[in-house]
């Protein structure tokens, strides 16, 4: 589904990503962790073409992201994305947030898009918040609307960029539950997160990144029990307390 080959990226002289290789198959959930500034968020943005990279290749469903002839707008319809700070459109209700892209991009009718949006709101557990503005929703509710907004385009892959790090502790679970359901429902997911409980439960693979490189990768249990590199051990000891 997603194939990253020898991908490197620089901001000026500073190398943010260095020779990244990764294959994510359909239906897999991959969790990416690592200290801040290690290039995790940038990696996600390179996969859907929000950020350009200088070397290597990224293929999504066989389509090259960096190929100038690729229609990135079309490609992004297949890749839903959820942000750390929700990024809901403040001037629109929850329902309008969800229906904007289906209406404008997929040219659905208002009834179709609205019906689908209500289904999604029910799926993330807040069908009663359709007409609320983002400012009147809690962080956890906003993030769930953001997930519904991404799902409304019926993506084949969902990417999450630290979806719970801006949330109050008691709201983390409601968002993680939605994500766990998605993963178990067979969605292909790339999740940047330090929620190790989540990683343990649903991740097919966990990647540890530092200074723009993939330091270590492993399946759930193996990754936590026997981290190979010192850097990974050090990191895990800090976040697992």
């Amino acid at each position, binding site marked *: 589904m997603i194939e990253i080959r020898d991908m490197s990226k620089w901001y000026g002289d500073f190398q943010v990503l260095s020779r990244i290789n990764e294959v994510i198959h359909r239906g897999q959930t991959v969790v990416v962790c690592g200290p801040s500034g290690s290039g995790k968020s940038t990696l996600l*943005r390179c996969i*859907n073409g*929000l950020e350009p990279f200088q070397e290597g290749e990224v293929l999504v469903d066989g389509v090259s992201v960096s190929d100038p002839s690729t229609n990135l*707008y*079309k490609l*992004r*319809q297949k*890749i*839903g*994305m959820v*942000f*750390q*700070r929700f*990024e*809901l*459109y*403040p*001037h629109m209700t929850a329902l309008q947030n969800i229906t*904007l*892209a289906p209406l*404008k*991009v997929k040219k659905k009718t208002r009834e179709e898009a609205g019906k689908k949006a209500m289904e999604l709101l029910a799926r993330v557990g807040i069908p009663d918040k359709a007409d609320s*503005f*983002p*400012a*009147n929703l809690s962080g956890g509710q906003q993030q769930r609307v*953001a997930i519904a*907004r*991404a799902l*409304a*385009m019926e993506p084949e892959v969902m990417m999450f960029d630290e979806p719970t790090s801006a949330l109050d502790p008691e709201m983390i679970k409601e968002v993680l539950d939605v994500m766990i359901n998605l993963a178990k429902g067979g969605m292909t997911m790339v999740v940047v997160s330090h929620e190790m409980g989540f990683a343990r439960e649903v991740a097919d693979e966990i990647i540890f990144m530092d200074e723009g490189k993939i330091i270590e990768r492993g399946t759930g249990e193996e990754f936590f029990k026997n981290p190979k590199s010192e850097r990974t051990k050090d990191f895990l000891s800090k976040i697992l307390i």
Partner: protein
Amino acid sequence: MGLGRISKKKWIYYPVTFYVNLIRNIPLILVIFWFYFVMPIIVGRPMDPFPSAVISFIVFEATYFGEILRAGFQSVSRDLIQAGYSTGLTYWQTTRYLLVPIAFRRMLPSMITQSIVTYQDTSLAFVIGLPELVRRTAIVDGLEVRSIQLFGFVAVVFFITCYLGSIVSRRFEVQRERGF
């Protein structure tokens, strides 16, 4: 003006920034004087007070309104725009449905406030003999010698219009506190 200040193109950004900084650090009254007394020397013929005052106001206020536009556009975060892109919206759709409506809602209170200031500043055109409200009052006062009533009336006119403006402005600000 505002778009020039957020332009990535240096040949647009630097001249516009120079212009904005220059004008914003000169008092309006000087710009009015300068246009009225210096332009005729350059153009070679005297200018009427009215077009001269209008041009001065445009030259001066464009920089202030430009800065309000700049702040409004910059207040919309990059991630929010990227959120739009990530759902497949195009550049124009993102601009049309997200950037412009959000930025304009945020800049509306400052726009109204600046409009009120501009309106009050029109009385400065008095200095080049333009018969605006204050000037006309002074003329009538010269005939009737009822300064307190006449200038009191002018103050009331200014107060009512400006106060109405600030009420509207405040309503938008309340809206903004709800999350815009």
